[in-house]
Every structure is written in C-alpha cells, then in structure tokens.
C-alpha cells in the first residue's frame, strides 16, 4: 500500500466520521416538525497502551476503540479516527487521555505509561576490562522493531527516529550484519501474509540502504504469521505482530 493510499484511507475515514456527524445535524435541522429522534446512544471509549512500562527512547503502541462518537481526541495527539493505533515515544511518564463526544454525550478513557530513565548497565567489574553492555544488548538497544499499519508495508513516518537510530548504530558498527524479519498479524491467509512480511522486511532494508548501510550487510526473511510475537486476537497484539524485527546475522 502506498503512502498516498494510506492518506486516502484516512481521508475516507475522516469523511465518514464527519459525514455521519453532518447527517445527524441535518436530520434535526431540516425536519423540525417530526418527533424528536430516539435518544442517541451514549458513546463508549477504550484506550490501551502496550507496553505500559518502557525505558526512555522505547516505543509505546496506543490503541483505541470508540462507539457512537463523532469527535474523538487524545490529549497531546489531537483528533483521531473512531478506532486506531498510534505509536508514540514518550520521554517521561505520561497519562494519555481520550475523549469521545457524540450525540448521546461523551465518554473518556485514560491509560498511563511509565517511562524509566535509560540505565547504563553497570555490572560489578569481574576483571580489568571496562564493563559495558554486551554486543547483543547494544544491538537490541539501538536497532529496534519497526511497526506497520494493517495490510501495509510502507515505513510509517513515526518509524523515522527508530530507523535513523538503527542506521547510526550500524554505521558505527560496520562489522555487524543484520537479518531483518518481516512479521504479520494473524488475520488473512498464511500465503498472502508471507508476501506482506517479505515486503515489510524489504521496505526496512531499503530505508537502511538509503541511510547509507551497505546492502550486502542486510538480509531479509519473511515469517508472515508463522512466528507471532503474541497470540491474542486484539488490536494491541496485532500491532505488535505487524513489524519488522532485527537480529544479528551471524
């Protein structure tokens, strides 16, 4: 799916939301003599963050779902569609507050993310060498998963910081080769998801190549929905599984 298509999808969704709102108002305004419509149902709202505790610099996936609301916003994020997901990177502990307003009233939901300061691993020195993170730990701290929208394999704008961090790490560790794995959520066919995972891993590879990493250091493999990170049928889990993950290619 191209970025253009995604923008189009958003526009369609926004149009749908505002369209419903317009219809509701128009009905009331243009038919003043008819009996008042049955009271609109009260909105409902759910908001979750995954994970709820992170280390500064890590990503959190916000996922929300509302019903019977025409106007939905999240403090600090702005207006949002009636349901969706967004990746955020809070630097300090943050409470995310969602308000859903509709003809039947309003509802809100709150979720809190605890952000711990980056801790430089200080192990008790066993010998004379300086204690640092192991190569694997350094890799994991710097080269982190890239998340994707559903049925999409273009790299999202919010992945830019993770990608540039990964590129910077790989640029200064020129001996490290990387295996990029493409993953999908459980929905849809095994076969189609394997091609989707391939395209996700490939998109990330191309982004790193554009950032100056040699193509020969980057290998891609698709896991489709064969090796899920989590197994729940929820949007939170699906978002966790729609990703490109990195391992050192030895």
């Amino acid at each position, binding site marked *: 799916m191209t970025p253009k298509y995604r923008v189009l999808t958003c526009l369609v969704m926004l149009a749908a939301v505002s369209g419903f709102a317009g219809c509701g108002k128009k009905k009331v305004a243009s038919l003043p003599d008819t009996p008042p419509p049955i009271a609109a149902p009260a909105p409902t709202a759910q908001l979750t963050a995954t994970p709820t505790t992170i280390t500064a610099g890590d990503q959190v996936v916000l996922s929300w779902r509302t019903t019977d609301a025409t106007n939905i916003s999240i403090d600090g994020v702005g207006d949002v569609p009636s349901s969706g997901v967004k990746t955020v990177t809070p630097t300090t502990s943050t409470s995310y507050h969602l308000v859903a307003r509709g003809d039947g009233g309003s509802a809100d939901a709150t979720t809190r993310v605890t952000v711990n300061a980056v801790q430089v691993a200080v192990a008790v020195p066993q010998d004379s060498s300086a204690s640092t993170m192991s190569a694997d730990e350094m890799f994991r701290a710097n080269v982190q998963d890239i998340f994707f929208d559903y*049925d999409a394999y273009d790299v999202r704008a919010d992945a830019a910081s993770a990608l540039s961090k990964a590129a910077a790490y790989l640029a200064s560790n020129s001996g490290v080769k990387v295996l990029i794995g493409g993953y999908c959520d459980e*929905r849809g066919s095994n*076969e*189609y998801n*394997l*091609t989707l995972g391939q395209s996700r891993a490939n998109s990330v590879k191309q982004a790193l190549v554009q950032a100056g990493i040699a193509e020969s250091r980057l290998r891609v*493999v698709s896991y489709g929905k064969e090796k899920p990170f989590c197994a729940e049928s929820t949007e939170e889990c699906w978002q966790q599984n729609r990703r490109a993950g990195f391992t050192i290619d030895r």
Partner: protein
Amino acid sequence: MTGTPLLSAQQDWVRTGSNLADQRIRLAAADFKPVGADPQTPLLKASFDATLMSDLANAGIFDMVSKSLMPTATPGAPAEINLATWAATPANASMVAFGALSTTNGRLSVYGWVFDAKNPGSPQVLGKQYNELANQDNARMVAHRFADEIIARLGGGVNGICETKLYFVSARTGSKEIWVMDYDGQNQHIVTRLGSISLSPRVSPDNSRLAFSSIGKEGWTIRMFSLELGRPVNFPGGVAGGSNLSPAWSGDGTKVAFSSSRSGDPEIWVADASGANLRKLTAFHGPDVSPTWNPRTNSQIAWVSGRTGLPQIYVMDQDGGNIVRMTDGGYAISPSWSPSGQFLAFSWNRKYGPGAPGGQDIYVMDIASLKWIQLTHDAGSNDFPSWSPDGRHLVFERTVGGHTEIWTMLADGTEQHELTHSGKNFMPNWSWK
C-alpha cells in the same frame, strides 16, 4: 421447492455446474452379510459397512435410506434379496447396494451388488468382487472402491472421490510438516520431517510428487517431495533467494507456478516441472501470490495480488497477458480453480477493515458471469478451499476460537463436516485422482 426462492436460484447454477443433481437417487446401502466364522470378520465388516455408508452419503448425489427404515433381512447374494420389500414404504429405495463379506486364511473377500428396486425383471446394475489381505485398512479401501464404482455408475459417469487423498499442514509434532489423509479424514500420516515450517502442499496431477514451500537457511524455497521414492528431489528453480511460496501445478503436470520475490517484489513465476526454464509472469508493485491454474485448459492462472491495496483475485493468461480483476473489494485470497474450469473457489472477507469485524468465508464465483455465492456463514474464519476432482466437494480450513481444523462440504455449501479434531491442521489440498 423448499427454502427461499432467492437462495435456491443462487444455488441452482453452482449445483448444476458442480454435478450436484437436484433429484437425488434414493439409495439403500444394506449391511453386508457376514459369511463364515472367522473371528476377524465382525470387525472388518463393521469398518466396511460404516465406510460404504459414509462414502455414499458423502457423495452428494444420493438420498440415503436410513438403516432404521430398511428391511430387517440381510441379503448376501442376488438370490437372497426380496426387492419388493426394499422398494416399498418405509424404505422406498430406488437402488439397493448389498453383498457378503468373509475372511478366509487371512484374506478378505467381498462380493457387492447394486440392484434397481424399480426394475425387478432385470435388476442388476452392478456386481463386483474384491479379494485383499484381511486388515482394517483394506476393509476401508474395498468399501471406497465399491462406493466409487456405484458413484460412477449412478452419478452420470463422474468418478467418485472415495480413493482420493487430502494433503495438509499439521503442527501436531511441534514443527509444521506436510501430512496426508484419506478423503474422509481416516488414515492420517506424516509426509515430511524437516523440523521447520513447511506450507502450501500441492500434489502433482499424477500423484507422484508433492510441491510445497519450506523455510530454511536460504529463506523460503519451493521444495519437491517424491511420493514414489519417499524422499525430497531437486527443484532448482525454487531456490534462488527471496521468498519462494505457494506452488501450483498445471493440470497437465508439466509446469509449476509460484510466488517469488527473487527480483525484489513478490511476483508470479512459472517453471517447468523439472525446475528449469524459469520465467516471470507479473510485473507490478505489490504482493503477488497463491496462483492456481485453470486445470481444464492450462492456459490461464488465477492468483492474489495486493497491487491496489487489499488483496484481490485476478485472472491472467499463462503468458502474463490479459489481466482481469475478479473481486470488487474486501480481502480476497486463496483461489482454487474448479476441475471443470467454470468456477473459482476462494476465501473472502467482504467487510475487511479496521473496526469492521467481517467474516472470512468461502465463496464460489462463476468466472464467465462473475456471479458469486457465499458457502460458509457465521462459522469462524475460513480459508484455503481446494476442489475435489469430481467438482462436487471442497475441502477448506476453519478457525474457531483459535483452533484451526480441516473441513469438507459440498460445492453448494451444504453438508459441512469436520475431518480433523486436534492439533493445528490447515492448508488442505485435494489430490487430482
């Protein structure tokens, strides 16, 4: 006529095209008569009787007389049958299958007949004799053979499917391996032992080789397993980098189409059955996967493409030209081309999207008219339909509450039966004969 007119009208074309006659033959399958006192006989007879009854009931062309309505006498030979009692109420049989079964010196012997109950002057329609080593597998096999004879004779010459096999993926050993079972779910055996993930089994039209996709050090490759040699054989075209997925045999067994991302983007490629003479058919940005040949002409391929966003079903000529989009939206995957060339079966979620929990269901589309009919309703998530060689049945996978199992149904969506019951079993493929 029963049912709503709309539903009947919709089902008419699919029933006609899949040889499912509206008027089913009223058939009685009598319990076979045990002959002799060999201790093996009762158990073999129980397997034979149950298999024959189930095969004929599964065929989709018979109205089976329930055992409780049959005459109590068990005829073991033409001289022993009183046809009038079978033709009369309550059995009202048009045809009667009956016979005798015995075991002697470790050999199973079966005599079977089909008589036309409405033609007492010259009743014999079929008479068959079988002799095999006496064991449970052979008792079932003989029943399958006799059932296929009956189905071919009474079902307009279309061969039955009782001796066909279903290949599928099972995770029951911990790794995802290819398995095989009889068409009725009996006799399940593991085929591959690669210890990794093997998917998309597709058996060759002559039942000699099995193509599938497996992940290893080189990523996903198309692999070949010789069912005659019982071991993997080379398929050089399926190994060249990128993900190589979802193989599909042409109906004449000379070519294999599959998806490969060796050139960057996942596209449909075709190789000879030897794995040589590779060429790329599609060239459009977006995933292309899950090809299936028109098995009647071998001149067209249907497949899944995400070139416009959500995956849709397309059809093209075998040289990659003349592309036609078949589905008008939603999330359409896993096409299977019917043996007659007339239909595509596939999995479709017509309301796919965020916040739209539509069902993933099996559909059949008439290719010429683009008319379609939904076969599964409100029962889990359904995928990977595969046609039986007689065109009357489909096998598919259904996931309910996190459990994926293999099911069959008639091509009009009726008579859905679960074939596997434990472990994760999925991606079924019906053998060609």
